[in-house]
């Protein structure tokens, strides 16, 4: 894992002091809420329905047990004993007091964490593959690159007042576990003739106008990457729309001028920017890469004893192959049946930290599906890890199944919401609580947003649910056919919306159609893509 040097630490410490001063000025009434707003937003502090919400950055979703324990500590001391892991691999606290915010950030800084650029119209926390460093299919570990980008984008003087927020994802595998092409910039690291570089996709996003990012450059060499990104951002900063907040994301610019014209402008800007010497030397990437060296693997490959049936189910569903023989990747589901997707109590966060320290070379990851990963678990320890999780009610074996739902906070917390997301997620999970039934349905990604902003990724759900406001009544639209993986696609609305119970029934009917029509080992989305919407529509509305 990356470790701060004194430069990194000094920057974060200075930020805490600066924000403390700003908060004090606000509390003393020296600045108005209007003047304070942009300042707090640069520090991840939102004003929500009931309280302040603080979003803490977890760079590329990677953290160690010390940091994880700090997250538990913050939840315990400053919030209501729980935190919410988000689709951008961060954590949010929902009940924060303004007067305590600087103390929280100061505590976070002691474990190399911060809330810098977790909101505002700037480059946000860089997201990445939760299996980075452990995935068998990766070309290289994407995290050093993500760290390089984190540093480059932190307090970037030119790009802190962009037309709109800007999200970047970096992956290094053909399998996309990070919804890479639904980001403003998606980077896929590849090797071409032995040289490392990146495929660059620009202009993806969700929100009210979902778009899949087109490829803007098939290969940018490692030592040109920052210059190239700087050119991408500069073109956007100069020409992105600022007249309408809903048309301000880079996807709209690229949609309006076309990918070819955008590519041409970026190439022109790049030719200029490349002369400025803004790319760090490869030695800097090497310095960072050294922090991400493979752990000291020492376990031999063993057969896992599957005699405990509950353990065996979890093994099949939540444990994934590792690139190192004798090791496995463990997914911890934060989606207990009837629970709030992505929430974890302080005690649970501590348990995960302990297990990581003891069994996963002290590392954890947060996934964009709002789950946690222990990336380096020796197979011989799997049963012990499972027991530890089970005792903390963290052993739900539902990874990628219908109850592994992504849901945004919705009307229970969010001031922009049209409808509640959490109760719908709870009802669906409860309806499908039977494990055999879920497993029979197989991979089925269900995602719920409480409004068109799409924080719950509904566009990318095999089944998506969108809360809308229909004459003051909460109403839910269903979309089918979305995907945030390498088979990326945007879901389509299937017809008129439903009330809360109606949408649960409709989902159930859809799964029945799938079961009747599936061939071989087709997933729900494969069947839907093959047979089209009609049979589903007929069953749901007929």
């Amino acid at each position, binding site marked *: 894992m990356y470790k701060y*040097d004194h*430069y*990194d630490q*000094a*920057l974060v410490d*200075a930020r805490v*002091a*600066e924000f403390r*001063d*700003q908060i004090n000025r606000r509390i003393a009434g020296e600045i108005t809420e209007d*003047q304070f707003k*942009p*300042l707090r937003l640069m520090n991840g502090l939102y004003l929500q329905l009931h309280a302040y919400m603080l979003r803490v950055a977890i760079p590329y979703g990677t953290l160690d047990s010390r940091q994880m324990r700090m997250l538990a500590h913050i939840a315990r001391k400053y919030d209501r004993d729980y935190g919410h892991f988000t689709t951008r691999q961060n954590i949010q606290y929902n009940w924060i007091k303004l007067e305590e915010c600087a103390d929280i950030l100061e505590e976070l800084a002691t474990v190399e964490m911060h809330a810098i650029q977790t909101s505002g*119209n700037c480059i946000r926390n860089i997201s990445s593959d939760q299996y980075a460093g452990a995935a068998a299919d990766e070309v290289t570990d994407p995290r050093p690159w993500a760290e390089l980008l984190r*540093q*480059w984008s*932190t*307090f*970037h*003087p*030119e*790009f*802190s*007042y*962009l*037309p709109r927020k800007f999200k970047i994802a970096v992956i290094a595998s053909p399998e996309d576990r990070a919804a890479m092409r639904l980001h403003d910039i998606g980077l896929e690291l590849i090797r071409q003739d032995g040289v490392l570089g990146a495929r660059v996709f620009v202009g993806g996003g969700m929100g009210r106008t979902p778009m899949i990012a087109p490829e803007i450059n098939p290969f940018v060499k490692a030592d040109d990457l920052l210059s190239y990104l700087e050119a991408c951002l*500069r073109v956007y*900063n*100069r020409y992105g729309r*600022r007249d309408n907040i809903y048309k301000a994301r880079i996807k709209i610019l690229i949609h309006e001028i076309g990918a070819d014209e955008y590519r041409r402008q970026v190439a022109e800007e790049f030719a*200029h920017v490349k002369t*400025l*010497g*803004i790319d*760090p*030397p490869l*030695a*800097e990437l090497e*310095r960072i890469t050294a922090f991400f060296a493979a752990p000291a693997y020492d376990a031999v490959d063993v057969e896992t004893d599957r005699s405990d049936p509950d353990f065996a189910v979890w093994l099949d569903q939540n444990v994934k192959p590792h690139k190192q023989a004798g090791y496995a990747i463990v997914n911890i589901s934060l989606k207990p049946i009837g629970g709030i997707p992505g929430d974890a109590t302080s005690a649970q966060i501590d348990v995960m930290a302990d297990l990581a320290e003891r069994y996963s070379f002290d590392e954890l990851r947060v996934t964009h599906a709002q789950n946690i990963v222990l990336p380096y678990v020796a197979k011989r320890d799997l049963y012990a890890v499972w027991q530890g999780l089970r005792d903390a009610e963290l052993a739900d074996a539902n990874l990628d199944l219908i109850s592994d739902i992504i849901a945004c906070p919705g009307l229970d917390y969010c001031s922009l919401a049209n409808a509640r997301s959490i109760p719908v997620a709870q009802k669906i999970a409860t309806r499908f609580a039977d494990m055999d039934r879920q497993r029979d349905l197989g991979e089925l990604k269900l995602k719920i947003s409480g409004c068109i902003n799409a924080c719950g990724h509904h566009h990318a759900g095999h089944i998506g649910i969108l809360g809308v406001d229909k004459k003051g009544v909460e109403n839910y639209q269903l979309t089918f056919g979305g995907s945030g993986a390498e088979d990326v696609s945007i879901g389509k609305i299937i017809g008129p919306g439903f009330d809360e119970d109606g949408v649960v029934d409709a989902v159930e009917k859809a799964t029945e159609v799938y079961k009747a029509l599936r061939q071989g080992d087709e997933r729900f989305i494969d069947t839907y893509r093959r047979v089209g919407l009609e049979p589903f529509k007929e069953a749901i509305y007929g």
Partner: protein
Amino acid sequence: MVEFRYRSDEVTEQPSVTLDAFLDQSNATAVRLEPDDDARALLPFLDRLTLIEVAFPKYRDGRGYSAARILRESGYRGELRAQGDVLVDQIAFMRRCGFDSFAPEASLNPEAVARALSTYDHVYQKAADTAVPVWKLRHG
């Protein structure tokens, strides 16, 4: 009114003209760029300009940051002024993009400005100022 100036030369007395007026064969030496204007239109004339004023009608509109960098990257050495909705918490970023004078619409507290400019000892990225990025400090 210019409240903060980080240059030692004399203040230009000539009022600045619009980009259109300037390109219309004016022999003006001071020009004002609106957010919509293309800073690159000035590149052939940088030698004869002593003041480029960049307008910030709203602090949220960050186009002027790119305009400033483009001008500095192209060798402009005259005064580069940020005018308009310029807030104390933006001055450090603006300095890094090459601005060296500030005419904020709402007057700023000099102490607060000094504090904002000295908050951070180091920077992560190379920009249009002389600050040395930490990657360079790390690798000499």
